[in-house]
């Protein structure tokens, strides 16, 4: 083996500063570069017409001709959406609204003006209403009757040439009316929606969510017969679907939560109209040149680009022939036409022939590179998170601190933990959420350890923890008080008090009982439904676990009497036997009916099985029972409750959870169930906002820091990063559980003499671990950890189910576009192989580097 300095490609030949630079640039490249230049171009083409009037409404009639109406009565005809011309108009009033059906086109505007024409004719007929009011919206029903709505709840219908009023039973302003067959919907101010089932003759109020009762619903529309949408002027989208087969759409409305910039229910845009292109695709227009497309029913709303020269005028209406072809019209003579549903096109979009391998590779390699970068991002952080958390867990599992030690030698530390650290953390969780709570917990622990270190630094005789030392004669009393406080809590007040163990168990069990998951019989098998109670109320489940822990500690401390040794339970085994047999007997004989007793094989086997279990358990509990010398002491149980190691138990809880559920399910639970990504993103955004505010106080430095903060925050917490954050945590936490066991095995392989030798020179347990055991153990656990890391890289492909575009998901997307299944997946396989193999090589190097001369069998080269 060449020595370090002799090798050609030696890491050590590179000067130290360059090494740091290399590592830093690699990290920056992986984590902070933006994704491939996402250049897009607009697919809206401006239609040039010699007019700068404001256009207010547009419709497309059954001939696929477009009709645009605007201020001062201007009408523009777009024949087949290609030949555009201004038409003579029968009015000079501003036309504000229009509608069309198979038979006619109608429009209306200020001063009660209503004009209409049959599709086949060229003549516009004016038939205004008597009043001089502004007509807000016009619609044509199934019977080709025109209906208009105005402010103050006015509805009028043109029937047989005459206008008549319809009672709307409201005085709210009505903004929009629309029909689908004989069903109609009207939207208005103060969150009003009216519905009609009889072509508009009668109207009744429909229920809308409480939160929009102040909003103006300015537009409403059907999409076929099973879905309807509405928008409010302040940017909220409402949706109505068919609730069941019996109800029809339009009866119940709910607000769509929009996953756009502010993660709220409003777009914070003044919307002007909405057009439904398909069951889930909607186009929205609004002030300031706002045109947005949502392809999933309003979940993600993406604003679209306009061609150069557009000055962000207000867009007033949209009319589409189908999901792709249509126009939008706005103020100052803006008309735009699209053939792509308005959706932005990526720049340089060319038609690629995917059957040619060269072109295929050209197209896919960018996507796959993106996917690779994304995979590396989660893998690296997953490995680091898993490793460090794994070490912490391994230390917890091998920690020798028993309850006896906590109470005897470390009483002061235990008191501070239970009477200071935990209550303060709980209060901060109540006040500011769990993130702050965890932070407070760690911070206080860190601070107390530091303070204690400084106080006790040079003292030979410890003066307790933080300088508090409880004198000997009071120790037992204090322990009992501690136990009592754990059991019954600290009942100060509703806001500032803490429930004790007993209270927590009681309230949690009550909550579970409310679910009624079991039946009323005393049989154990009937109550098995309660296994699922933790999902019904997770908070109650945590309280139950914590309650059990606190009660155990509380009762133990209260009964502490200075000698921390085994406890003997008189006739304990007898008690156990009684429990076992009562379970079996209730199982077999409750609900037992002599008439129904059937002697089938199944039921016979059931009886035999239970009886057999009973005898087996009996034999296990009292193995050496001899009826000749019956010694009552035979039935005693001795346990040592002080032997419990709390850190060990906590760590075991963690690893048991993560090692006994599949990684795929953990991904979905963490991302979709707990929505960890969303919560961390919110915390991250809050922190970024705070940092930005702080930075703004720094004057000239602000222009340096602010863009840096923004950039880092965007790469970590920006939109779409939720699945990234969830993936990191799912991978890292799962890996930690496995790495913990590996590291623990490695620690156990170090001879105990090393720990003894370290402690004999006066090092603390942690010190020996850090300086002596862990350095040797890490060397041992490198091969199995390498295994674990390879697993991590390959398991990262599971992140594709939470829509994180790493390599596998990119593969799926590429297959969807190119249909080249073999090539695509082949490339993905090669990519994974290269990554994993490089990792394996690196680990082999690491193993060489950390070899201790003279120790261990190293095998071949």
């Amino acid at each position: 083996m060449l020595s370090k300095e002799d090798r050609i490609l030696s890491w050590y030949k590179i000067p130290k500063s360059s090494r740091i630079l290399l590592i830093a640039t690699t990290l920056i490249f992986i984590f902070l570069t933006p994704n491939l230049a996402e250049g897009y171009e607009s697919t809206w083409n401006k239609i040039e017409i010699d007019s700068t009037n404001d256009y207010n409404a547009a419709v497309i009639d059954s001939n696929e001709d477009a009709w645009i109406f605007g201020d001062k009565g201007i009408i523009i005809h777009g024949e087949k959406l290609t030949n555009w011309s201004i038409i003579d108009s029968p009015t000079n009033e501003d036309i504000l609204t229009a509608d069309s059906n198979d038979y006619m086109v109608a429009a209306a505007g200020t001063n009660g003006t209503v004009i209409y024409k049959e599709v086949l004719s060229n003549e516009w007929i004016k038939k205004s209403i008597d009043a001089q009011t502004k007509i807000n919206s016009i619609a044509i029903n199934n019977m080709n009757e025109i209906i208009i709505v105005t402010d103050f709840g006015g509805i009028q219908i043109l029937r047989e040439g005459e206008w008549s009023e319809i009672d709307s039973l409201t005085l709210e302003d009505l903004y929009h009316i629309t029909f689908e067959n004989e069903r109609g919907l009207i939207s208005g101010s103060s969150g009003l929606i009216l519905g009609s089932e009889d072509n508009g003759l009668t109207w009744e109020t429909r229920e809308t969510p409480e939160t929009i009762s102040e909003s103006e619903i300015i537009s409403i529309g059907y999409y076929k017969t099973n879905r309807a949408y509405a928008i409010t002027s302040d940017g909220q989208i409402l949706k109505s679907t068919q609730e069941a087969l019996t109800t029809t759409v339009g009866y119940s409305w709910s607000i769509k939560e929009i996953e756009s910039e502010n993660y709220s229910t409003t777009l914070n845009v003044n919307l002007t109209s909405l057009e439904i292109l398909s069951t889930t695709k909607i186009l929205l227009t609004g002030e300031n040149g706002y045109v947005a497309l949502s392809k999933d029913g309003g979940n993600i709303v993406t604003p679209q680009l306009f061609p150069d020269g557009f000055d962000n005028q207000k867009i007033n209406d949209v009319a589409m022939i189908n999901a792709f072809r249509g126009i939008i019209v706005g103020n100052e003579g803006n008309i735009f036409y699209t053939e792509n549903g308005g959706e932005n096109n990526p720049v340089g979009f060319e038609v690629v022939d995917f059957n040619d391998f060269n072109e295929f590779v050209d197209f896919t390699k960018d996507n796959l590179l993106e996917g690779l970068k994304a995979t590396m991002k989660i893998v690296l952080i997953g490995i680091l998170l898993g490793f460090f958390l794994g070490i912490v867990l391994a230390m917890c599992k091998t920690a020798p601190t028993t309850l006896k030690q906590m109470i005897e030698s470390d009483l002061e530390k235990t008191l501070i933990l239970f009477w200071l650290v935990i209550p303060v953390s709980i209060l901060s969780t109540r006040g500011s959420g769990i993130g702050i709570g965890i932070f407070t917990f760690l911070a206080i622990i860190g601070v107390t350890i530091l303070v204690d270190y400084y106080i006790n630094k040079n003292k030979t005789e410890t003066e307790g923890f933080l300088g508090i030392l409880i004198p000997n004669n009071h120790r037992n009393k204090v322990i009992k008080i501690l136990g009592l406080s754990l059991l019954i809590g600290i009942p100060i007040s509703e806001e500032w008090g803490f429930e004790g163990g007993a209270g927590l168990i009681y309230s949690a069990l009550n909550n579970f009982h409310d679910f009624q998951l079991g039946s009323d019989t005393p049989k154990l098998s009937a109550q098995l439904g309660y296994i699922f109670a933790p999902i019904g109320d997770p908070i109650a489940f945590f309280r139950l676990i914590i309650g059990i822990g606190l009660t155990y500690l509380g009762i133990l401390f209260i009964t502490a009497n200075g000698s921390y040794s085994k406890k003997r339970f008189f006739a304990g085994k007898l008690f156990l036997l009684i429990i076992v047999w009562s379970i079996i007997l209730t199982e077999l004989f409750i609900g037992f009916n002599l008439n129904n007793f059937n002697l089938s094989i199944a039921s016979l086997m059931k009886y035999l099985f239970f009886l057999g279990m009973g005898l087996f358990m009996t034999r296990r509990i009292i193995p050496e029972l001899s009826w000749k010398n019956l010694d009552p002491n035979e039935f005693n149980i001795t346990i040592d409750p002080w032997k419990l190691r709390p850190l060990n138990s906590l760590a075991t809880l963690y690893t048991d959870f993560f090692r006994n559920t599949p990684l795929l399910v953990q991904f979905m639970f963490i991302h979709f169930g707990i929505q960890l990504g969303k919560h961390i993103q919110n915390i991250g955004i809050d922190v970024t906002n705070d940092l930005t505010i702080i930075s703004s106080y720094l004057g000239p430095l602000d222009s340096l820091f602010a863009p840096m903060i923004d950039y880092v925050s965007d790469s970590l917490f920006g939109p779409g990063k939720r699945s990234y954050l969830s993936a990191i945590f799912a991978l890292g936490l799962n890996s930690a559980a496995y790495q913990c066991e590996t590291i623990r095995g490695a620690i156990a392989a170090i001879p105990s003499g090393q720990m003894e030798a370290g402690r004999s020179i006066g090092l603390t347990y942690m010190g020996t671990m850090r300086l002596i055991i862990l350095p040797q153990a890490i060397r041992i656990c490198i091969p199995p950890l390498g295994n674990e890391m390879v697993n991590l890289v390959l398991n990262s492909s599971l992140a594709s189910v939470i829509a994180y575009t790493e390599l596998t998901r990119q593969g799926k997307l590429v297959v969807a576009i190119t249909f080249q299944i073999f090539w695509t997946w082949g490339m993905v396989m090669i990519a994974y192989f290269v990554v994993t193999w490089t990792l394996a090589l690196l680990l082999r190097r690491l193993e060489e580097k950390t070899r201790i001369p003279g120790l261990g069998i190293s095998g071949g080269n």
Partner: protein
Amino acid sequence: MEDEVLIIENLEKIYAGGVHAVRGVSFKVRKGESVAIIGSSGSGKSTVLRCINRLIEPTMGTIKLNEEVINNPLADVNEIRSKIGMVFQSFELFSHLKVLENITLGLRYVRGMNKEDAEKIALEVLERVDMLDRIDAYPGNLSGGQKQRVAIARSLAMHPEVILFDEPTSALDPELIGSVLQTIRGLADEGMTMVIVTHEINFARDVADRIIYMDKGIIAEEGPSDIIENPKTERLKEFLSAMDDE
């Protein structure tokens, strides 16, 4: 008395499972004295030694180091252990560190010294055990006798009040034993307080001021080193004759 470094009173140890290894052992060690504990396997001598620096917690009894009771729960175990040195039968050197680093580890991380001062003391101590030529070697490259001498140096460097030796030469072959015994003899001559558990009867006789013979968990006979020549109790006579026959 002021110069009694170590006072052991009524030490008892019952292991889990009921093995009553030590059944009431009491003795004192004065400053500068070297005490050898001999006895057959299973007599409890290693247990007694390990109870002194609390590697094993005694079930009952008191251990005092310089008038201070060290086996109560409130005492700072680490502080105590840094004042008591221990040399193990299996050497227990830190195999991932070089010889010099093995010695300086305790000085730097327990006594808080900086690297230069620690190394100075380490070199002094290594000179005393005659290991200066191998300070950059790893323990894996040393012979048994060298390893044990480094282990002794490691304990010496901490300037302990007393050094405990747990069968220091039992894992060495006769040729290497000599160098280790010479080192220990040198320490005794310099006046280091020592408690040595050993199988080497002759060594015990030459070096130790006092010999304690343990049998089945109690002290069967105790006295100056000439009890080897003139054992007073039957059990010691039997033990010595058995050892002589080998």
